């Protein structure tokens, strides 16, 4: 397997809301109880909302629009999108970060919205599948999924498309093997993988030309 499937040692650390740093961060939260609190981490968690218990109003910026929504701290970004903002394009397949159906972009990075809490995402730019097209003009990735039939039931599709867009931006769709690897966090039970690959690779080749 070629080395481009894995991040280089000198790749900058993943941004805050990736799955990996979430785990790191939850480790840190657990650590608060055991060791002197890390001021920066505590600040990060409470910077936007001083209320840390019970339902509270927060403002989320989703698809370039500000939404004020009342949530408890335990409410995930996924359930906030689906159950409070009626942005049901983002899907819940497992609720445990195992299937990728809930993938959204936070500050341009792909993020599993079931593994992050809504209160943590204040002040950030959240993009969901509903925010990808410009009016009636589909994003090239959406058009490529239709063209290559990169979907059947459509339930994993929003997550696949959000991952696909990010995969191209990350530069992880330069070969078939690399693209397969970096699209493997998104499960598709209908088995549209070869068509998903074709769609993502086509958009990647267009982007590199453009």
């Amino acid at each position, binding site marked *: 397997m070629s080395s481009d499937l894995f991040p280089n040692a000198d790749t900058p650390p993943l941004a805050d809301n990736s799955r990996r740093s979430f785990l790191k961060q939850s480790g840190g939260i657990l650590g608060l109880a055991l060791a002197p609190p890390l001021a920066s981490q505590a600040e990060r968690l409470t910077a936007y909302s001083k209320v840390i218990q019970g339902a509270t109003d927060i403002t989320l910026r989703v698809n370039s629009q500000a939404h004020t929504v009342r949530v*408890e701290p*335990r*409410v995930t970004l996924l*359930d906030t999108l*689906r*159950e409070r903002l*009626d*942005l*049901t*394009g*983002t*899907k*819940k*397949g*497992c*609720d*445990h970060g*195992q*299937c990728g*159906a809930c993938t959204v972009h936070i500050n341009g990075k792909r993020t599993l919205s079931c593994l992050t809490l809504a209160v943590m995402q204040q002040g950030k730019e959240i993009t*969901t*599948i*509903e925010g*990808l*097209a410009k009016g009636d003009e*589909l994003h090239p990735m*959406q*058009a490529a*999924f*239709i*063209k290559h*039939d990169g*979907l*059947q*039931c*459509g*339930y*994993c*599709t*929003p997550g696949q*498309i959000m991952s696909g867009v990010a995969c191209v931006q990350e530069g992880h769709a330069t070969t078939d093997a690399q*693209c*397969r*690897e970096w*699209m*493997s*966090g*998104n*499960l*598709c*039970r*209908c*088995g*549209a*993988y*070869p*068509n*998903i*690959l074709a769609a993502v690779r086509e958009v990647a080749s267009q982007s590199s030309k453009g």
Partner: protein
Amino acid sequence: MDTEPQFFETNAAPGVVGQPLSRVDGWAKVTGRAKYSAEYNQLPGLVHAVLRTSDVAKGRVTSIDASAAQRQPGVLAIFTHENLPKLAKTPNNPEDQKAFASSPMSFFPMASDQVHYAGQPLAMVVADTLEHAQYAAALLKVNIAAEVPTASYLDPKATSYVPKSVKGTEGVTKRGDAQAAFRNAPVQLTATYHHATNHHNPMEPGATTAHWEAPDRLTVYDTTQGVSETQKTLAAMLGLATEQVRVVTKYLGGGFGCKAWVWPHVVLAPLAAKAVGRPVKLVLTRPQQFTGMGHREEQEQTLRLGATKEGKLLGIVHEKTSTTSPWDDYAETNSRIINMLYALPAFESTYHLAKASVMTSTSTRAPGDMPGSFAIECSMDDLAYQLGLDPIQVRLLNYAEKDPTNGHPWSSKSLKQCYARGAELFGWSQRNPRNGQTRNGKLLVGYGMATASYPVHNSQGNARVRLYADGRAVVQAGATDLGTGTYTIITQVAADALGVPPQNIRFELGDTILPTTQWSGGSTAAGRVSSSVYLAAQEVWQKLIKMAVIDRKSPLYGAKAADVVMEKGRLQLKADPGKGEAFGEVMKRASLSDVEGTAQGRYGSIYKEPGAAADANMNKEEKDAAAGYSMHAFGAHFCEVHVDPELGTVRVARWVSVMSAGRILNPKTARSQVIGGSIFGIGAALMEQTVRDPNLARYTNADLASYHVPVNADIPDMRVDFIDEHDPHVNAMGVKGIGEISIVGVTAAVANAVFHATGRRLRSLPMTPDKVLAAMRQPA
């Protein structure tokens, strides 16, 4: 109808049927606008229900302390076996069951204190938010007097028995004297095959949203493959008339058989909604999905195959042992495909069951034929190897020119062409006839193939077509689209049948207010719904022609109705095509904005037979006899694997499938379905298994991190081709369906390739690295 409806023939000027149209529902799905059953958030006062399920596989609930849960904010109701409203009819009562159209097991939880399987619903909490309901459900203190469960047929406590019947097949069936044929055969092969428990795991979990619009009007948005079966079953259980229940499924996030049935949560949601007086949404969690909507049972099959020295089959004796629930005699009918796939003079099959502390297993993509094909297709490969024959050669040697089970001719069969085309596309001639001889660096390379087949089941259903004078049309049938492409293919059929472009067609499905049609399953939907729509369009033409020939202003005035045909939206004389007019003209003169047609489409051997002679309730033998033909789709899969002899990993490197399944309505969506079925089968071959703890009878890996389904990196380039068939016997459209056949034979093709690569025969699925390494330690 005045004239006999004609079989759908491709016109000289072809339309869109058979063209690779992109999915008409693609736009809704890629933009996130497609609304699935858990996404009807606009219902007034919608609240959430959460299930609390049992950690214990067997026992009795001694108490459920709900006091802490009840004190939680937002909690509206808590249901247990002590206060759940009674059902009018319940699956627990065999008499009641007769009123149901789709009840998957003879048990309904929360009707008593009994616990029969881990994951059984014990309580349901309804609250204003999902988080409140989840937390309150976690606070319930459940006490269970646990008993020692039986985990599976492999449990020493399990007693096996031969049931009277499984799924309509007798527990023991005999055709000729297979025992003697085997005993006297010059070549005898005996092998036992194991198949792990598999779960469907559609990406969309089971979900039901129930809304009582009035005390006698219930609307349910449900993840179901059959809205009318769910409607009928729910109505019976809730004590309503069928028409008082409406079931809606506009988009379904995969099904694969598990969404074909009314599982307990589908009934619990309306009960909760009625009690709290508000619409209720109940969504299964992923772990609950593993114990909420059935599974493919773990099983073993022993195949004893007798053949001549030349490789011709003489007889097969097949035995299957599997686990079933405490209440049902359920097993996939593996014997069906083994009985019919080759020219086999004698066959005997016996089903053994053992009851364990599990829910009833259920239909899973190509039930029976999928695991059955693993056994027969590995054994055929063994036979080829033992006799020094090419695997395709041994299959051609035993090619069934007619159905060996009843002697009937096939309605159509193009399997030879599938073998030839598949071998050509794959490069089968490059295969080294000897096992374990082909390498790519340190990897062992193997080629394998297997035959696929799936029957044309009987089904019927209605459709309505409304053609407007402006050339647009609304087409309706209460079908469901599991992601299979129903929206798209029916749009194509309607467009051609009406002679208008596909963008003028709006096809509506997934609602019981639409014409009733049967569930989408068993590969019946494409043939049945397309036929219904095509015939309904014929009725529209019949009405228009009748109007034209008595209309003095029509160029067709005075013509015989039988002499008028429709060509691209124009009514014209068969003998003189210049004489005619557009349908819109006829409607305008009659001051009609539209004309409607309805029809019942039939699929399988009941097609063309009058209702009195054959109907959907007849058994398979009666129907086949009525039709005079046996109806099956056929195909072949070809596979290249790379096996790492040090790590035991198996990777599928190349894949070719060639299918012959009657008319292919849309090669683009059909190809996707075949790829999808193959990938589902590759998962079963290499990685999928749900493990039940032998002591606790609880799944140890009920989530998508530890139940491995294939990911993109597991799947190579795949090539699919179709052998087009003209089959006027299966239905008016000549369609056989491809959803199920695409998985049949897949596990065997992979296992045969592993055998070719390593010289080791793996007979236990999935072929995980530990099993491969263990086999590599044995002599080839």
